[in-house]
């Protein structure tokens, strides 16, 4: 194998765009929402499910999913859970602060191929973050898609994200919206139990339903089992994986499982592709 090195156009892969935080909301003790404007209000041009590398000089970079729909113009949104060094510093930023953005990276949900189908969304915990991009995309292109069914689970009512969106989804008679928490509180009126408890009761048009699942690693096993019991064909299932990432552009090797780089071929995978990748789930 010989590659003509001098003919290849190179890319500046590691230079972030300095972008501005234009709005912040706190959702929970651990999660905050940020609205970001790229230089000159350029559009990010992402697909639902893709991520960006957020760059905070002095702290480093972290992959964060885009949570707004590509249909939203002029800015995009992130939702960040505080878990460590970089995310803590991110949480301390104010409106008007600047951050670096690289991306969008990876493969998202193939919304074109979902056209005409019913969409079943299954989001656990922070997994709702990339799914919200897909949900809003479907809402903004409502006539292109069939039913929109959202299953959302969190550990406790305090950990639910996007309070405004949840109200909207709940009220809309165009969206079938089910929510559950693992542990309720005295005020909690809704379902309690893990997210898989919501699956058996669904009435689905099986061959015509696309399922998009995102959640913590442990959730996948159980959700996939329930989906199997429900006889949802594997080819209708999409899910998003998380791994350590450093570069986001298929170079650093950290995100690799088998012959696949999650930052390139994922994070969203068509389930049949994943089934044969050991270590994936």
């Amino acid at each position, binding site marked *: *194998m*010989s*590659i003509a*090195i*001098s003919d*290849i*156009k*190179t*890319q*500046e*892969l*590691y*230079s*972030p765009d*300095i972008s501005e935080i234009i709005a912040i909301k706190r959702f929970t003790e651990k999660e905050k929402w940020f609205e970001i404007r790229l230089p000159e209000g350029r559009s990010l041009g992402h697909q639902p499910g893709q991520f960006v590398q957020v760059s905070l*000089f*002095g*702290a*480093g*970079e972290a992959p964060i999913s885009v949570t707004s729909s590509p249909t939203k113009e002029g800015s995009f949104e992130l939702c960040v859970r505080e*878990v*460590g060094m970089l*995310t803590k510093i991110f949480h301390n930023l104010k409106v008007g602060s*600047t*951050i*670096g953005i690289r991306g969008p990276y990876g493969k998202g949900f193939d919304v074109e191929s979902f056209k005409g189908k019913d969409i079943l969304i299954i989001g656990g915990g922070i997994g709702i973050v990339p799914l919200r991009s897909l949900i809003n995309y479907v809402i903004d292109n409502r006539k292109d898609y069939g039913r929109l069914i959202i299953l959302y689970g969190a550990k406790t009512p305090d950990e639910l994200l996007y309070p405004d969106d949840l109200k909207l989804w709940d009220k809309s008679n165009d969206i079938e919206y089910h929510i559950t928490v693992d542990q309720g509180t005295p005020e909690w009126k809704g379902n309690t139990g893990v997210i898989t408890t919501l699956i058996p009761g669904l009435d689905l048009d099986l061959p015509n339903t696309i399922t998009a699942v995102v959640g913590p*690693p442990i959730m996948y096993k159980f959700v996939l089992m329930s989906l199997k019991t429900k006889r949802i064909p594997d080819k209708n299932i999409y899910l998003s994986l*998380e*791994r*350590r990432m*450093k*570069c986001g*552009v*298929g*170079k*650093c*090797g*950290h995100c*690799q*499982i*088998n*012959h696949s780089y999650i930052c*390139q071929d994922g994070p969203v995978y068509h389930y049949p592709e994943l089934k044969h990748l*050991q*270590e994936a789930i």
Partner: protein
Amino acid sequence: MKKYQLNKKQLPSFIDHLKKQGTVFAPHKKGDASYSFAKVVESDSVILEYNRTLNSIKKYFLPPRELLLSYSRKDNSYKKGTIGKEKKIFLGVHSYDMKAVLKLDYNFTEGNPEENYLLRRRNSSFIGVSFIPDEFHFSQSVGMPVHDTDGFDIYLEKNDDGYTVKIITEKGEKLIKEFNGLCDALDISSNHIQFQNKLKYNYNRLPEVFEQSWNAEVWEEVAKRCVGCGTCNLVCPTCYCFDVEDNMDLSLQNGTRDRSWDGCMLNDFAAVAGGENFRKSLADRQRHRIFRKFRYITYITGEPWCVGCGRCTAYCTAGISIVDIVNQLCDEYEQKYLNRPVEQSGLNLEGL
């Protein structure tokens, strides 16, 4: 192909000639019994007969530590690190290390062609040299004989009086053009050089073995002896994983974003926030390392990603041999899937 004879005593003047055309890098002695590529200052300190260098010439294209950006936190501005455009001539490269560069070319151009690598990699010429395989080399088994000239501009094949100089490319022709003193090539045909160390199967049969090797016993066995030091990753000419870290100076305002070589044998390589580690055990990590060399990229390109340089084995303090691992996988494969009697592969894992 044009051939000449370069006599031993002409070597320093040949190197001086090269130095006029660019910065020359060549093997030098390092420490008590090792070799290392370094910029040539004194032409007569170059050593062309060596077993292997500690690091390969990868270090010139993907430096062990490299500044990606320098930033100011005051206004969140940054500058890219500068990369010199000097012409580089690599002298005395072994065929497997050349092949490793060609493989890195694939990794750094495939998908997103990386500027840092490519800027360093351009303007390079390569002059190969033959070598006598020692107990660790096995490049023949992965399809790279000693005299493989793929990637070289000029190739020097050792003979009794010095070297047969083979001009491989036009670039090579130019490099040598104004050097007078070359004689006509002696009339000796190149001798095929044998390897002491071999994989049990030739590389083109390995995919079928690796297809069945995920659950092989060898991973756990090797993990018992491995200390997870990462040496085997860091010295490998085709490993290219890296870590990125921001460093600040004492003003607490300015700093640099630096990358450095990383390795999948290390504890936190696949660890994420919250304590999850996707390859916690040394057995999982060994399997990943070996699969990286013989299955994953191979699955896509059809080529092994190990060039048989023997570094990971020669420099492993635990004496873990990649050849033994692969050979044991072949044995397990034969035993389980071909039902053939196992030949001894020489791997002794008793007493672990």
